[in-house]
């Protein structure tokens, strides 16, 4: 499946094997569809749009999938494509994956994120509200709207700001969980804990934050981290596993009495 450099508007024929599940209580199954004449310029989601139009014409319900901005930033889309969260390209969301990455005659297997903490709602749509509850547990700085100090009264060394931004770039899509054999959310939690721990604004609450967010993560039934780094490989925002190391340090620090 090497990337083609041919820029002509060629088309390919595909076999799409996609997970269909009518609701949370349905067992679900793979169904196979032939899709012909797919332009290689299409995005992966546009290919699914075309598949859905084909299903509609045949009076079959379209494949449900989450998507919104289609620019790789909202974090709404996400599916496991041929065994890889968001598909074969590094640092690329499903919406930014393009069909020129595939070849004529390919079979593409598409599944939802699979994790106990992300129950399937329908087809490829999962419930990721566990992520919101983790942020709710402590992913914030306790400051009310009002009269904070002048923005330049808080100096942040440039390198700290850059590192913080690297972590803050997380789009909350859940690919890290889907890629992990333990369905661990350590990269997601590590990114938020790092973003705030690296800034002076986040320091007063750093212990409580790390403690509360980890407790919520466990409560949501995400698994443990065993350092296989599949999360980093799948992350479309390029979040580094060093944020997991930092989360571990922040968590340990939260247990110390000083």
């Amino acid at each position, binding site marked *: 499946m090497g990337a083609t450099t041919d820029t002509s508007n060629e088309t390919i024929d595909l076999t799409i094997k996609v997970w269909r599940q009518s609701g949370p209580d349905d067992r679900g199954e793979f169904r196979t569809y032939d899709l012909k004449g797919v332009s290689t310029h299409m995005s992966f989601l546009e290919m699914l749009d075309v598949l859905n139009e084909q299903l509609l014409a045949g009076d079959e319900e379209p494949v449900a999938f989450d998507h919104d901005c289609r620019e790789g930033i*909202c974090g709404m889309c996400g599916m496991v494509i041929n065994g890889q969260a968001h598909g074969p390209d590094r640092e690329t969301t499903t919406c930014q994956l393009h069909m020129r990455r595939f070849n004529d005659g390919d079979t593409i297997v598409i599944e939802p994120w699979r994790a106990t903490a992300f129950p399937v709602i329908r087809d490829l749509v999962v419930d990721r509200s566990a992520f919101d509850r983790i942020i709710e547990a402590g992913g914030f700085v306790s400051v009310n709207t009002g009269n904070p100090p002048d923005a330049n009264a808080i100096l*942040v060394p440039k390198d700290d700001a850059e590192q*913080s931004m690297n972590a803050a*770039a997380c789009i909350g899509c859940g690919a890290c969980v889907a890629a992990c054999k333990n369905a661990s959310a350590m990269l997601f939690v590590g990114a938020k804990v790092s973003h705030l721990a690296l*800034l002076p604004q986040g320091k007063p609450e750093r212990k409580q934050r790390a403690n509360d967010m980890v407790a919520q993560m466990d409560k949501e039934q995400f698994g443990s981290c065993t350092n296989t780094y599949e999360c980093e490989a799948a992350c479309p925002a390029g979040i580094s596993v060093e944020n997991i190391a930092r989360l571990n340090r922040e968590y340990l620090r939260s247990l110390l009495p000083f």
Partner: protein
Amino acid sequence: MSTTTQASSTLISNVPSGPMQERWTKHKFEMKLVNPANKRKFDVIVVGTGLAGASAAASLAELGYNVKSFCIQDSPRRAHSIAAQGGINAAKNYPNDGDSVWRLFYDTVKGGDYRSRESNVYRLAEVSNNIIDQCVAQGVPFAREYGGTLSNRSFGGAQVSRTFYARGQTGQQLLLGAYSALMRQVKLGKVQLYPRREMLDLVIVDGMARGIVTRNLVTGEFESHAAHAVLLCTGGYGNAYFLSTNAKSCNVTAAWRCHRRGAFFANPCYTQIHPTCIPVSGDYQSKLTLMSESLRNDGRVWVSKKEGDKRHPTDIPEDERDYFLERRYPAFGNLVPRDVASRAAKERCDAGYGVGETGLAVYLDFRDAIKRDGEDVIRAKYGNLFHMYEKITADNPYEVPMKIYPAVHYTMGGLWVDYNLMSTIPGLFVLGEANFSDHGANRLGASALMQGLADGYFVIPYTLSHHFGSHSLPSVSTDSPAFKETLVEARNRVESILAVKGNQTVNDLHRKLGKIMWQHCGMARNAEGLKIAKEQIRELRDEFWQTIKVPGVGESFNQNLEYAGRLADFLEFSELLAHDAAERNESCGGHFREEHQTEENAARRDDENYCYVSAWEFNGVGETPTLHKEDLKFEAVPLAVRSYK
């Protein structure tokens, strides 16, 4: 066009009097307060969780109100504010380059082509600095200098550097800041979240907005929610054009439903079309992607001098290239304002000089910049954008010129609001892109984020308490007739969509609407085209109700049903947009009427006859709406011809 519209004097803007600089301060003092113990007796519904909605919901909850927050996505963090790239303006004057609140105010009024409300714009500039302070305190990782202070960069049109940014992800970081404040209030029990809910109607009791009807997008259930006030923070209507830079779920439904219930819709014809987007590449295309305006600093825009030239761009010799922006606008060259650049590209393509397979694109070429500065310098400046472009098009812009074309990006029009952000329905407030008030006929870059957060953090907390303090608002029950009737109407509408069982999909019909809108209500409009558009929209609306095909049932997760409902509302709304465009016989900002242009193809405003806000009152689907005018007075920034030459 129609002559049945009439002016009315029912619009009271509640703008305070006195010197511009003192108005907001004076108004804040004159507004009524609700004491802390009483705030917990008030429930507030906030629809939408973008910058305006999330900041409003968090701030109101902090004050003690009980907030219910609704969004159509699975999480409040995904609202489309997240896609904003460039930055957020504020009048901090950190670079010491002559900026001030007054200058930001002046630039915004001028940028809006003198069609915004001065007092609102001044307030926006005034609170801009508080926004930066607030966001920094929340932990938004803005770009920094080596000394640890905040960085600034310059942005479209302004002569000062007043834009704060977090790489190319400023909207994302500001939204995550507001979202974290919101989630903190969820933890404290002051905000109740309702994700995957779509507002389908507004409930009015005794003339006041007192609740909403929603559809649970997972179960399909219809739900009613009561409150003492409703805040609409539901964004713009760019998706009326089908293809736009908006996210797929951006829609006009909430605003349109409120319009149908009596909220006036202001200036719907003011739409912003951004010149540098990746062009349409095929019929399957589902959305358009913006390429930052900053590229025009180093890129040169051109087409071939030969009509229908199919040669590869690198095979076209220098003397056969038409650098049409440099040719037509020697003073500004490739850096002319957005509207001018968009129209010039359209003119070339319409004349048959467009490039690429569709002929609807022009080149943006970095060859000369690379030759001058080296590839590394260009990579350092624009590497991420070049990478994104290559990802989407498979063309390497270091070797072949980018192909770009204008696309619908932002809508300046919206529900009419007074100085307190309240619509013509008491108790219904409208914030952010969903209202009309601050950008006039054209929005400046980096001002959308500023307005959303100004409305949510620093305006609504004051004006909402004034509303509560000024009215007696007895509690209402969702069992009351008004709620029950509204819910039945919403359910009937959804069921009637399912009942059509026709043979056209939502996508088919939405694409058709997009083509009508783009052709006749796009970058250039004329009386004849707008008349055709209105007729075609009406026909398409009938076609929708005869041929729409939505499979499945209502009581389930049914994405086609969601889209169909939104399209049904776009089909009603679009006629109003076309009507407004037809009735405004002048060109201003993003509204360009071909009949009203200067010899240099610039917009020709008519201040004598059109220096007003057009606020439309709904009279029924397909019926001519009633025009209400709010006259615009320019006391601080005198009316002048907008010129960037």
